[in-house]
C-alpha cells in the first residue's frame, strides 16, 4: 500500500509532448488544456462556490446580525461576540467539550494502541479487522440508541449485571455525574476499532526485519514496542490523534440521541449548543458567532493535520 501514498514528483515545467517529437499527420495538441480543465472543474468549483465559499461569507455575516430565521437578518455589529463573553452556557459548553475531547482521546488512543499492537504481533486476519470496524460503520444514532438500551436504569443489561454483582444500579445517562463519562465511553466503544485499524495500518509500514533482528538479539515484546513500534509510528500516531481530536470536537449525534445536552447542561457540548441556539431558540446570528469560534479552533487543528498529512506520507512512503 505504501507505494500508493507516495507523492509523485512535481511536474516538469514543459508540456507532456516533447518539442522534438516526430509530427504525425495531425498537428500535436499544443496542450491547450484550458477549456477541458475548466469543464473538468466546473462541478467542483460550483460546489465550492455555492456550498463552501458563499456560506462561509454568509456565516460570518450572520454572526454580526440578529437573525431569527424568519425575519430578515438585522445587523448588530459585534453584539453577539460581546454577549458570548458573558454567556455562562457558552463557557460551560467549551468546558464540557474540552472534558469530553480529553477523556475520549486518551481512552480511545490508548486502547487502540493496545489493540493495534496485539493485532500486529499476533495475526493478519482480515475477518478480525472487519469485525472491529463494525461499530464505526454503524450510524452514531444507532450506537446511541443501542447503548441507551444497554445502560437503561431499569431494564438495561449493564445495570442487571451490576446488580447481580451487588454494585447497585446507576442512571448512566440521567445522572449529571455519569452522563458525560457515559457518552465518552460509548463513543470510545464506537471509534476505538477504527482508530486501532489506522494505527495497525501504520505499523504495517514498519519494516519487518527490524523486529526479526531485535528478536534475534533477545529483545522482548515490550522492548520492541518502545524501541521500534512507537518511535516509527510517531508520524502516523500524531496524524491519527489530530484527526480524532477534530472528530471529537464535533460530537453531536450521540448527544442528540442520548442526553440532549442534559442533565443540567452536563453534556451540552459546543456543537449541540450551536444546534440548539439556531434551531430550537432560533438565534441564528448568535449560533453563527459560536460557530465562528468553533471554526477558529478547528481551523488551527486542521492546519496541523494538513502539515502532518504531508509529513507522514513522505516519511513512510
Amino acid at each position, binding site marked *: 500500500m505504501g507505494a500508493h501514498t507516495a507523492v509523485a514528483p512535481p511536474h516538469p515545467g514543459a508540456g507532456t*509532448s516533447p518539442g522534438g517529437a516526430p509530427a504525425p499527420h495531425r498537428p500535436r495538441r499544443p496542450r491547450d488544456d484550458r477549456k477541458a*480543465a475548466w469543464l473538468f472543474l466546473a462541478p467542483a468549483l460550483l460546489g*465550492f462556490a455555492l456550498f463552501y465559499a458563499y456560506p462561509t461569507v454568509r456565516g460570518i455575516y450572520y454572526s454580526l446580525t440578529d437573525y431569527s430565521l424568519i425575519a430578515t437578518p438585522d445587523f448588530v455589529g459585534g453584539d453577539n461576540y460581546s454577549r458570548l463573553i458573558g454567556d455562562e452556557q457558552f463557557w460551560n459548553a467549551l468546558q464540557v467539550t474540552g472534558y469530553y475531547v480529553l477523556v475520549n482521546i486518551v481512552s480511545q488512543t490508548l486502547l487502540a494502541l493496545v489493540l493495534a499492537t496485539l493485532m500486529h504481533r499476533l495475526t493478519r486476519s*482480515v475477518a478480525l479487522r472487519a469485525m472491529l470496524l463494525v461499530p464505526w460503520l*454503524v450510524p452514531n444514532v444507532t450506537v446511541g440508541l443501542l447503548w441507551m438500551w444497554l445502560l437503561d436504569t431499569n431494564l438495561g443489561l449493564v445495570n442487571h449485571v451490576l446488580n447481580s454483582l451487588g454494585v447497585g444500579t446507576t442512571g448512566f445517562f440521567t445522572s449529571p455525574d455519569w452522563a458525560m463519562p457515559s457518552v465518552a465511553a460509548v463513543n470510545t466503544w464506537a471509534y476505538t476499532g477504527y482508530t486501532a485499524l489506522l494505527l495497525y*495500518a501504520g505499523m504495517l509500514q514498519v519494516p519487518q526485519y527490524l523486529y526479526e533482528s531485535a528478536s534475534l538479539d533477545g529483545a522482548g515484546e515490550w522492548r520492541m514496542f518502545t524501541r521500534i513500534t512507537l518511535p516509527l509510528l510517531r508520524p502516523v500516531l500524531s496524524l491519527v490523534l489530530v484527526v480524532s481530536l477534530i472528530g471529537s470536537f464535533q460530537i453531536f449525534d450521540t448527544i442528540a440521541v442520548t442526553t440532549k445536552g442534559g442533565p443540567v447542561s452536563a453534556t451540552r457540548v459546543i456543537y449541540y449548543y450551536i*444546534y440548539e441556539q439556531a434551531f430550537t431558540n432560533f438565534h441564528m446570528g448568535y449560533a453563527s458567532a459560536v460557530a465562528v469560534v468553533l*471554526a477558529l479552533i478547528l481551523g488551527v487543528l486542521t492546519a496541523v493535520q494538513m502539515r502532518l498529512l504531508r509529513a507522514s506520507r513522505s516519511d513512510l512512503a
Partner: protein
Amino acid sequence: MTRIRTRVSPGRIAAWAVLVVALFATVFPFYWMVRTALTPAADLYTDSTGLVPDHPTMINFLRVLGLTSQEEAVAAGGSGAQVDFLRYLLNSVVYSGLIAVLQTLFCAMAGYAFARLRFPGRDVVFGVLVGALMVPPIFTVLPNFVLVKDLGWLNTFVGMVAPSVLMTPFAVFFLRQFFLSVPREVEEAAILDGVGPWGIFWRVVMPMTRGPLLTVGLTTTVWAWKDYLWPLLSGRDEETRVLTVALGIFQQQSPNTQPDWTGLMAGSALSVLPVLVLLILLGRRLVESLNFTGMK
C-alpha cells in the same frame, strides 16, 4: 523461526485473551440489539436478561416495516404513529448512493484536472479549494440550511444532497495524489492516438485508479449512511426521511414513559443490516482502504 512463532507462552495467551475480550465487547452489543428486537414488548419486564428470548417473535420487525395493521402495531407496543422503515431504508440508500457516486465522479474530474491538465492559476485554485478543509461542517450547515430553504429545496433529495454531491475538499485532494502517480507514458500513448482529455480520463486513467476510487466511494457511502444532522434539517418529512432521522423521531414517539425498546432495536438492526452486507461483500477492500485513507 517457526518454532518461535508457534511456541505457546503465557504472554501470547494473555495477548490473545485481550483480543478476544475486545472482539466480544465489540460484537456482543449487536447481538443484544437483535435479541431485544426479537422479544415481544409485553415480555420486556419479565424477560430482558436471558441470552435468548423466551418467546421469540418477528412482530417488532414487521411493525417497524409498516407490514402490520395499526391495531396490531399498538398491541405489540407501538405508539400507533405510522412508521415505515422500509421506506426510510430506501431513502437512506438513495441519499448515500447519490452522494457517493456523484461526489466521487466530480471529485475525480477535479482531481484529474489539478494533477494533469495545465491551465493558468492551477495551483492557486487548488490551494483555495483545499483551503475549504479548514471550514468545519457546523459552520456551513447553518447558512446552507438557509440557502436550501430559500431555494425551496427543503424536504427534497436535491436539497439534501446538493451540498455534498459536487465536491468535498478532501476527496479532491486525495484523488489528485493518485492521479499524480499514474505513469505519464500511458496517457501520452493515448494522446498520440488522438484521444482527448475526456477520453483519456474515462478510458485510461479511471480504470487505472479503480482502487482509490472505490476507497473514496466506500468511505463516502459510510459517511453519508451515518449522517444525521444535515438530513435532519433538510429532509425531515416522511418522503425524504432517512434511517438515522427516522430512528430519532421514532425514539420520541414512545407510547408510555419507557421508550419502545423492542421497536427501536428492530429499527436499529435495520440500520446495521446494509452495513453488514457491505462488509461481507467488500470487507477486504473496506478494511484495506483504511491503510491509505485514514482521515475520514
